[in-house]
């Protein structure tokens, strides 16, 4: 396996960035941002993974069992929820932008407001 998961991270990041740069629609742009951000989840969980180790829950396994890093899992967990809320905020902004300017094309929006 080696570095394969980290290459996946780079790929997700690059695809998301490409989508944002070439986007012609705000909702598409926001979805690309979600894709971009999900690369951080793969990175966090990949960094903390240990081959053959258990999940960091010691309810029914001995306490000394080797387990994966719980810190990165905690980070990914809060990140997922916060990201969903921030996405809602961005979509709300897109709704209002459409109402005010009648377009969802970021490039036209730039022309409108200089």
């Amino acid at each position, binding site marked *: *396996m*080696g*570095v*394969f*998961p*980290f*290459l996946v991270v*780079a790929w997700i990041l*690059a695809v998301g*960035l*490409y989508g944002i*740069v*070439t986007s012609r629609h705000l909702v598409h742009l926001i979805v690309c941002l979600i894709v971009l951000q999900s690369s951080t989840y793969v990175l966090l969980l*990949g*960094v*903390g*993974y*240990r*081959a*053959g*180790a258990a*999940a*960091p*829950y*010691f*309810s029914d396994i001995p*306490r*000394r069992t080797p*387990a*994966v*890093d*719980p*810190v*990165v*899992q*905690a980070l990914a*967990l*809060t*990140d*997922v*929820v*916060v990201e*969903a*809320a*921030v996405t*809602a*905020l961005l*979509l*709300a*902004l897109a*709704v*209002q932008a459409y*109402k*005010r300017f009648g377009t969802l094309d970021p*490039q036209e929006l730039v022309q409108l407001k200089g």
Partner: protein
Amino acid sequence: MKPRQRLWLFLVAVAGLTSFYLWGLVGLPGFGHYPGPYGDIINRIAVGQTNATGVVSAVNFEYRGIDTLGEEFILFAAATGVAIVLRHLRGEREHQPTEAASPDARQDSPAVRQLSLLLTGPMLVLGWNLASHAQTSPSGGFQGGVVLASSFVLIYLAGQLLTLRRLSPVDVTDAVEAAGAAGFVAIGIAGVAMGLPYLTNFLGLGTMPGAVSSSGTIALISFFVGIEVAAAFLLIVSELLDQTLLVRQETS
């Protein structure tokens, strides 16, 4: 900037990023060879120190409590932001909610509606279960809160828009969200009032690791986070629903 120039700039930037990233990978331990030591130390001491067998929750609500407080307030700010951004624009009028605006009036699949209605209760119980078992199992306030909010969304999917609005009036949801966020802060301040550092686990840890009553403030904070997350998502969903179903642009 023209789209073409932008694409070229992007390609140059991404080439630079890729080369630095690959360079960085050379020094990393391979996938599956976690070097530690931080995660290992936490895994070794967390159960003994907090009586919580779910170490991820222990990290979230104890060792990195302040960080989670910050995350929670991002969520709080985002939900408030949605409410502010979606306020009425000039020339907009809110229609009285009627069942005509709900999916009832449209040609929705009866199967979806019945299934949603059937799942509402189990979802509510599942969300509550998740939010109250942070200390023992892979769950906690964040996950439980989202599932709790989903159970309310199912009421809408079941074609009961008016019931949803009756069950979760915006004022009440606002207040509940604020109470959830304030609860987290208050637990921290309660520690300070006792002369301890902020967010110290000042409650009894219980006698048995892994019992629902164990782990002191971890369980309590998770409960408040669950309430806050559920209310925040419910608020976001009802603001967006109001936008599509009730607020209509004036044609004049």
